[in-house]
């Protein structure tokens, strides 16, 4: 199993803040993203800008995920003001 979380506009697009996905063996973040794309085609437009974190550390689409990991997808951050 793999825990997947979404934030901000990506959460709105997916319609939920987290979900579990089947994962039996090591794979790449990209593969996970492609599975999401089949369910949520609109997510494609985020491919070139989205940020990825695996177990709360920044990663990218080529990073490896293994069963039990937590993968987070979110848009570029916009904290603060000024």
């Amino acid at each position, binding site marked *: 199993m793999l825990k997947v979380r979404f934030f901000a506009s990506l959460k709105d697009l997916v319609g939920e803040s987290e979900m579990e996905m089947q994962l039996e063996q090591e794979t790449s973040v990209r593969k996970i993203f492609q599975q999401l794309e089949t369910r949520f085609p609109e997510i494609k437009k985020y491919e070139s800008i989205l940020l990825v974190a695996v177990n709360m550390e920044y990663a990218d689409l080529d990073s490896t995920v293994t069963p039990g990991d937590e993968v987070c997808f979110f848009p570029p951050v*916009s*904290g603060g003001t000024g």
Partner: protein
Amino acid sequence: MIRIVESKIDREKIVQSVSTPESGAIATFDGTVRNHSREKPVTHLHYEVFPEMALKELEKIRAEAMQRWPLNGMAIVHRVGRMEIGESSVFIAVSSAHRKDAFEACRFAIDTLKTTVPIWKKEHYQDGEVWIEGYGQ
């Protein structure tokens, strides 16, 4: 002091947390909610956070700053949830013996926060709302 809070930011308390007898300078940055954005009137803001990771990233910023400059203290507090015009969304305070270091580290902290800390801003207008997503906006 590294915090994500949901209530009003207490600037004075944060400044006091970095004040030391060895410090000659305290630089602060206060990010406040503007009443307009890209020529559009803003009614209020809402910030969403990925809390555990945001705290980790804020700690990283402080650790890097403390290593790069001879600082006596650095505090970063970010507020999340709904904020009204004029309220502080983020407050950073840095103390050092000499002002140059405090200024540089303070600016480094806010610039870095805006690209690495997982917090997102949603602007609310009279006629709708928009997620602000982008680097350093």
